[in-house]
């Protein structure tokens, strides 16, 4: 355990002498840390948006898409018979997981907003509703419609397509927006870190020429820069992600069936923790490229 910690510390501190030869260049430090933090924060926000929109799309694309409603109209006395006929048809239809006629209570609850709680359903010629759940594969709505037309008069199939679609499109647009912003933020961070590293290398052209003069190898020089920028980015991104998580926990919650609230739900909370290491990785790669390119350029 002690040896492990020591090794970790050496990795963190790296080669102390190598770190000392690169000056503690004030502005590029702040530039890197700040932009990593800002990008981390924005990434958390975008991630929250993308994941919430994803959940939304799942709900509308999933739960709603896997259900349908069958309405049976007709005179009161034929209702029982028609309902049974419809249920039989549905039983035989591939892709229907279950079909259930709504009970009187359920129908009354649905109608309550319009009729009030005292409605006597038995005396009314209101249609019977059947809730259908699809299997994951779904059924052939057109075929079912044709068959019902022939066998069950007054049956109307509503597979929620028409009013589900725009919701779904909106959720998917939001999700796109979220992930698009994520990608853009990642690219921005990579670019800013690359540029900050390049600026730092360019500003340290004298340091590099001094080190070469005394016979330092290029990777000795490059390592000092790479290590520094990687850790700066990690630090900045961690701070930004932390602030982002706090902010997204503070976001007003709107727990609704169709808008599950913006923010992270359940295990989603773990996803943002990938941001700092990813940012550090991006910084590592970006600085490495910048360092070796600059070193070759200064030859």
């Amino acid at each position, binding site marked *: 355990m002690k040896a492990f910690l020591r090794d970790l510390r050496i990795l963190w501190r790296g080669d102390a*002498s190598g770190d000392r030869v690169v000056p503690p260049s004030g502005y590029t430090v702040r530039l890197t840390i700040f932009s990593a933090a800002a990008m981390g924060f924005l990434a958390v926000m975008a991630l929250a948006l993308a994941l919430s929109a994803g959940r939304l799309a799942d709900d509308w694309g999933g739960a709603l898409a896997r259900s349908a409603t069958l309405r049976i109209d007709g005179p009161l006395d034929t209702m029982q018979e028609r309902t049974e006929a419809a249920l039989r048809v549905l039983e035989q239809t591939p892709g229907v997981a279950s079909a259930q006629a709504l009970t009187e209570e359920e129908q009354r609850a649905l109608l309550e907003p319009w009729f009030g709680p005292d409605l006597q359903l038995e005396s009314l010629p209101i249609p019977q509703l059947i809730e259908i759940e699809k299997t994951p594969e779904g059924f052939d709505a057109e075929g079912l419609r044709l068959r019902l037309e022939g066998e069950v008069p007054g049956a109307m199939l509503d597979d929620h397509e028409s009013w589900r679609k725009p919701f779904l499109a909106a959720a998917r647009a939001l999700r796109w927006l979220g992930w698009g912003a994520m990608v853009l933020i990642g690219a921005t961070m990579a670019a800013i870190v690359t540029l900050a590293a390049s600026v730092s290398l360019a500003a340290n052209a*004298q340091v590099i020429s*001094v080190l070469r003069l005394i*016979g330092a*190898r290029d990777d000795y020089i490059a390592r000092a820069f790479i290590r520094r920028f990687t850790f700066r980015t990690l630090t900045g991104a961690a701070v930004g992600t932390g602030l982002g998580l706090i902010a997204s926990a503070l976001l007003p919650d709107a727990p609704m069936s169709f808008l599950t609230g913006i923010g992270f739900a359940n295990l989603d909370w773990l996803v943002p923790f990938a941001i700092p290491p990813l940012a550090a990785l991006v910084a590592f790669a970006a600085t490495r490229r910048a360092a070796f390119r600059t070193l070759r350029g200064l030859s």
Partner: protein
Amino acid sequence: MLVIALDNVAYSYGGGELLAGVTLELAPGSFHFLTGPSGAGKTTLLKMCFGELVPTSGRVELFGQRLPGMTRDALAGARRRIGLVPQDARFLDHLTVAENISLPLTVAGQDMRAQKANLDELLAWVGLTHRAKATPPELSGGERQRAALARAVILSPDVILADEPTGNVDWEMSQRLLRLLVELNRMGKSVLVASHDLALIRAAKTQTQVRVLRISNRRLQFAGADL
């Protein structure tokens, strides 16, 4: 074996040829002065000896290795065996003078404490003991040159290439620096000093066996005894 050899070398910065047909062989223990008017190509020649510039034609060998065939790491290794005092010396401004002078030790991975006595002696010789804790921007012009010379010799290199090392120091100090170079030369190191200071060259001649080279008309020649 020769430490540095230039064989029929020419150099051009893009315009006309600056140097042509230059042949120079630095053997261990040799002491050369390089003279010539300003802009003749003294610094250019030194940079070729250091592997910083690659000749337009001809061949350069550092410690028996041909230059264009060397890897970057091999070149870095060769440079650690050459102490260069640039005309316009640069330092790491965030480190102290003492740290800058011992930087070659750091980069070569040598134990600093073992070399402490060495460093102190060197600081005293170039008269920078009282400025050891200053940073390079706080040095005077002459102090910078002396620090650059100290940095060039701390690794005890096989060759010392010095470009106008006494351009900014007074007569007494330049005599002191000359004695340091002569001392190192007596230890078997090869020394090449570019300088336009004729008085310095005359003084050197009284102390050791010195050859004076002169660049004139793009060619490298041995200067006559009139110097």
